[in-house]
């Protein structure tokens, strides 16, 4: 019997270094194939819009217009790259952190913030955008991506489902169950771990002692890929390949995007308690937006006019968001009872009646 050249599973292992196509200073990594100019310019635009959206949402929290905003400042390339690597018909399963992913998907900014401003519902129609509601209970959306992919396969659609997961969420049981199901049923799923180094205050060293989160893939029998999450080009390429594998029946992939959350977890969090300023500064120098901008400018793919046009578009987006979010009225209280069951029960009808009477009295 011929000896195996590699131990089984070795081909599933991620590389020691994250895949990177563009260095932090904007120079291209030698001998690497980058996505085409159209794709990269689209990514740049999405990054700028995403960054501006983040800033606006953070400002709205400070003005008391939003209940909470978990910022993804610093992680924009991971979210933008993952979404742009998919087709619009592929499904995404985002978390509370993944507003930029939804923006990139084309969801109305006001709808993205509906949940975070404290409404009870998710704001957008998942079927219009092929995007599940932003999920708060950690990792619980991952099995949904698996089920959606299962159904897609049963319907003979070539849809891919991508689940966004944080580094902390990888410790949850549902993360494990989802990966295992996807692998056992050989489903078109991409698990996309955004390792932003902290789960609120807890560093990755307290979540896992595995060499990387991508290494976990091997135990499930699927490939794990480490990618520089601040390099939109690399994320586009890696998630693109994972989506291709999924679509062509080669099964699920676990992608870990190594990145950093520049802001605190939310406005309620004091990040200075658990991480040093120097650490943040180090990551600021790897900024994803500046990186792609430098690469595109240096390679002649972006000029000041296009840059200015995108900047103006971002300002418009922010201004429009400010005006509309503040103007938006909460839905009528009757709706509380309307969407619990397909038809409100007698009990709910009685309670709706009570609420109506109460509000008329006041």
């Amino acid at each position: 019997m011929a000896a195996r050249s590699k131990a089984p599973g070795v081909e599933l292992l991620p590389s020691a270094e994250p895949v990177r196509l563009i260095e932090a200073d904007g120079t291209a990594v030698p001998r690497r194939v980058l996505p085409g100019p159209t794709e990269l310019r689209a990514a740049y635009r999405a990054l700028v819009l995403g960054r501006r959206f983040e800033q606006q949402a953070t400002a709205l929290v400070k003005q008391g217009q939003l209940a909470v905003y978990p910022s993804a400042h610093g992680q924009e390339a991971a979210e933008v790259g993952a979404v742009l690597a998919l087709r619009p018909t592929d499904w995404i399963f985002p978390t509370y952190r993944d507003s930029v992913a939804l923006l990139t998907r084309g969801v109305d900014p006001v709808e993205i913030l509906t949940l975070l401003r404290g409404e009870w519902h998710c704001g957008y129609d998942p079927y219009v955008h092929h995007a599940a509601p932003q999920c708060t209970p950690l990792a619980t959306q991952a099995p949904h991506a698996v089920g959606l992919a299962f159904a897609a396969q049963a319907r003979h659609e070539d849809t891919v489902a991508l689940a966004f997961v944080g580094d902390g969420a990888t410790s949850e049981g549902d993360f494990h169950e989802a990966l295992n199901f996807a692998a056992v049923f050989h489903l078109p799923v991409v698990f996309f771990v955004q390792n932003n180094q902290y789960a609120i205050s807890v560093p990755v060293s307290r979540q896992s002692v595995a060499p990387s989160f991508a290494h976990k893939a091997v135990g499930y029998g699927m490939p794990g890929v480490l990618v520089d999450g601040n390099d939109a080009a690399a994320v586009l390429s890696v998630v693109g390949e994972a989506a291709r594998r999924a679509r062509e029946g080669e099964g699920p992939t676990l992608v870990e995007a190594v990145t950093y959350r520049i802001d605190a977890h939310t406005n309620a969090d004091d990040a200075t308690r658990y991480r040093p300023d120097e650490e943040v500064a180090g990551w600021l120098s790897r900024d994803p937006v500046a990186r792609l901008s430098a690469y595109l400018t240096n390679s002649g793919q972006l000029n000041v006019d296009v840059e200015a046009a995108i900047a103006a578009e971002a300002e418009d987006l922010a201004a429009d968001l400010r005006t509309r979010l503040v103007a938006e009225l909460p839905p009528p209280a009757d709706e509380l009872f309307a969407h619990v069951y397909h038809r409100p029960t007698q009990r709910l009808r009685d309670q709706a009646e009570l609420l109506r009477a109460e509000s008329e009295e006041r």
Partner: protein
Amino acid sequence: MAQAINQALADCLAEDERVFVFGEDVGTLGGVFRITDGLAAKYGERRCFDTPLAESGIVGMAVGMAMNGMRPVVEMQFDAFAYPAFEQIVSHVAKMRNRTRGTVSLPMVIRAPYGGGIGGVEHHSDSSEAYYAHTPGLTVVAPATVADAYGLLRAAVAWPDPVIFLEPKRLYWSKEEVTLPAPTEPIGRAVVRRPGTDATLVAYGPSVQVALAAAEAAREEGWDLEVVDVRSIVPLDEQTLVASVRRTGRAVVVAEAPGFASVASEIAALLSERCFHALSAPVRRVTGFDIPYPSPKLEHHHLPDVERVLDAVATLQWEDA
């Protein structure tokens, strides 16, 4: 009853290709209670299949499937092994319609053998209906007859909301002469199983048989008891319950789950609120004790039996009538 459930699943699989049956050991083995016996062989391993051993994964996968147009029917192997899936059930199964303002509904069924009386070791005899009934967004049903096991399950699979389908495991082997499909009342309707004039026994699932036996025995005492089978815990048919108790003026609610903060408590409170002026006595509850489900050697102490029901009936202030 086991056969009726099997028949219902088979008919659903045959009629609607969006239906999938899955869980632990449901494929080749046909389930530990053989409820899914033969389904994989007949409808293929894509339609009825074994999953990895993970309840949260099973229910979570069903959520994604239902989001994408399927009608999954999943089996939890035993009542007390559904708890790992509890988060999926409470956070997602129950809330998806609400969270999406009505745009995403989850037509799915979670079947679970439930209740005691079969001499099971620990974790095999829980009555967990109150957890589900307490969660807005879930429909919760429990059949007590063979016809209902079939009819309610067919209705559950066709229902636009997620249904928790509680199968009284001690009735699995109960036999009745019924030709299936037999016509049954829809979800949301309670049924008077035995008319009577002196008091109403309200019960569901395995306790219906106990109530019927108690009503039979009560004849010797000179009491003519009505038995109402709740069938659908959520939505609850308040009208039928209230009408019965207003007619009889007395009520005992029978259920084997611990009584504190239970479905029986809810029904008793409801009857007190809605029937107070028609009542000749306080509404009584006969339930299991507020203890972890006991060992097989002691479970007969815990489960409401005919004696205990009759004792409660005896306290309904008959002398004042």
